[in-house]
């Protein structure tokens, strides 16, 4: 099997990242935003893994990726809790309705 080139991996990572960002900026549903966040994180994870080939142990990237996954899980939990609370206050999870921090 021919080894996949680093460039392709980075392209996928970049596409994921950009998709995540676009998702975050366009989605008004809090869950959608959360999904965008996950996409961004996974895009980053892909980069970690891709680069790990060049490290002496070739495991650093994987470790970092696992940390990110764990963190993402925790974050998802917190984010969903926020979403629940947000819903309690606004009877919706449209993030545009929450502009209390407007200056």
């Amino acid at each position: 099997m021919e080894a996949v080139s680093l460039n392709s991996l980075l392209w996928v990572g970049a596409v994921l990242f950009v998709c995540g960002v676009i998702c975050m900026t366009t989605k008004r549903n809090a869950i959608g935003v959360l999904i965008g966040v996950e996409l961004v994180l996974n895009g980053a994870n892909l980069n970690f893994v891709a680069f790990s080939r060049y490290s002496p142990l070739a495991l650093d990237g994987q470790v970092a990726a696992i940390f990110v996954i764990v963190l993402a899980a925790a974050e998802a939990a917190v984010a969903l809790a926020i979403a629940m609370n947000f819903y309690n206050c606004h009877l919706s999870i449209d993030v545009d309705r929450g502009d209390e921090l407007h200056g």
Partner: protein
Amino acid sequence: MDSLGPELATYLSIAWLLPLVGFVIEVMNGFGQWNRLSRKAALLAIACIGTGFLFSSYAFCRWGTETNWAVFAEHESHDGHASVLDNPKEVGHDHHAENKSAVPLAYSGKFYTLAKFGNLELSLDYYIDSLTLLMFCMVTFIATCIHVFAVGYMSDELTIEYVDHHAHDSHGHHVHRLGRFYRFFSFLSLFCFAMLGLVIAGNIFQVFVFWELVGICSFLLIGFYTERKSANVAANKAFIVNRVGDFGFIIGLMILWTYCGTFNFTEYKSGETMKPGLFEMVRTAEGELTYTDDTHETVALHTSNEHGHWVAPQGESTKRRTIPYMLLVVAGLGVFGGCIGKSAQFPLQTWLPDAMEGPTPVSALVHSATMVAAGVYLAARFFPVFTSEVLLAIAYTGCITLFVAATIAVVATDIKKVLAYSTISQLGYMMLAIGLGGWAAGLFHLITHAFFKSLMFLASGAVIYGCHHEQEMPKMGGLFKKMPITALTMLVGVIAIAGLAIPGTPIAFSGYHSKDAIVATALAYTQHNPVHFLLFMTPLVTAGITAFYMFRLWFYTFTGTPRDEHVYEHAHEVPKVMFVPLLVLSVLAAGCAIGGEHGQLFKMISLSEPVGLAEGVPASGVAQVTLPSHDDIHAVHSTAGVVALLAASLGTLTAFLLYCKPVVKPENIKNQFPGLHNFLVEKWYFDDLYEALFIRPSHAVARWATGFDRLILDGILHGAAKSTVIVSAIDRKFDEGFVDGIVNLVGNTTRRFGYSLRVFQTGQIRQYVMFIAVSVVALFAVLFALLPKA
């Protein structure tokens, strides 16, 4: 007798101070114990002044006995005073003895010192000569008579509810008040005290002191009816006009004080040394001035005593006191200014007629017999200091006064006003006489006038009392039947003042003799100084006018038909307490001058005559007038007597024809000359003139002064205050605007900057993400663009 001086001083002082004691008791008790119905005040006042008269008379007798009545024993007419002094017994001070013929007999001494400044000394002194004694007797005697009269006249004040018909309150009702019997007598007593103090005064300063005191008594008495505005105004006018004269008096005092260093009339003892008084300083023992040079510009004052004569020290100029001749003239004029005010001479005569607002006894005592004569008395007393210019001024003042006043008296209809103007006129005669060198004649007239004028005033008071306070002659007439005693006594006074006599016989009333003496002096004077012929013509003509208006008064009041039935109906003769003084006075008014210039009275006066007058005074100074000697006067005496009598008779005849047996109606004459009549009725417009010239400008200046204070001085002050406020306001603005402004600017800028950033803080989470993304891209773009390519 050395002890005679102090002895006389003691008696006269008692006479002088008794009324003061009376005044104090009367005033104190008046407010307290005595009720308004009590006559005690009057009794006390009469007791005081009566005792005063007794003491004065006793002093007079003592003086007479000591001099062996030499004055009367001597029959050599006008040399009398010299011969008295031949008797060494009556000499007051040692040096007089060596200078018998020159210095008149006088005693002087000191009561006590008021103040002493180095060598300068202000004190109360006495100066007693025959004139002083005569004045004392005259004043106390007339005052006693008038006090007694006043008991009757003022009896309507013996009430607790006096209705003043001449004063109205704002509702037009008559004013009701308590009777003020005691107050009247206390004022009279105070007046007597002041008047006697003036007479006994031994220095010119003391004269000034009592001068003011009689002035204030006059003020109080004129304004006795305090409810009447006219009375208050008249009282103020009297005092203030007198003060105008006193202004001159003070100037005279200042000059004499500065140059002579003393106010004493004659020499006095200072410490252990004798010092010369004003008379010795100014005149030599022969009565002449000493000049330091031939130009007659500076008079040397005599300060050094050599063999009993005061002489001017010779030699070093620093030791020699001198006074510029002009200042001596000014000093004399100044002192005479005081006399003008007090004796109501032209141009200050306007106060005296108004002063008739006072009760009639006051008019009799204060405003005819005594106080107003004080001016004449002072002019006579101060004669040695007057230079010939001053004497000429005195003569002309007297001359103008006597004429002006007499003309006004002709048209006056108020019985008291006629008498007031006649008083002014007669005072003019006295002044004229003194100015002409007829020293004794002037004082002679003073004494006789005091008697007949007080008599006439009291008689007029009796008429007013009898007619229930009616003073207007047009409402009287025919009163002879109702009040014969008053009418007759008044007639005595009228004849006396008119100067009527039966020629060739010694039958003549006092006024004839004294006026005759004055006219004779004037005639002799005019013979020596023909330029001043008016000084003879005017008094002569006025003698006729005097007779006219006095008889007009008498005919108008007592003869003819009653013009006002109401007044006539109620008229009645006065009670005994009032007509007895009238009778007593009428005897004296008729007879006090018996013998004329050979009589006792005239001789008494002549005894005090200033040195050098008897021989006449040759022309000197700017005025260049010669004063006639006694011989000159004597020579023309009979001529003068005849013409004066002629004038008086003419006046009497005219009055008789106009008012008693009317040949021509006075009204017709009045209508013939309305302008002249008005002019006289308006008193030559003096009052209006003074109102326009002095009173209104004074008030204007007063308003200016207040305005100046309010507008300028306070204006400056307020301006300063305001500018301080303005400066501090500016300061506040600066503080608030500039200093605070900078601080605020910093804050505001910061805040505005913060506000400007608000727009980015939308609270939209998606926007934030967008910003972040875009920023990151931009950051990278920048990094890539700027970082050097490896």
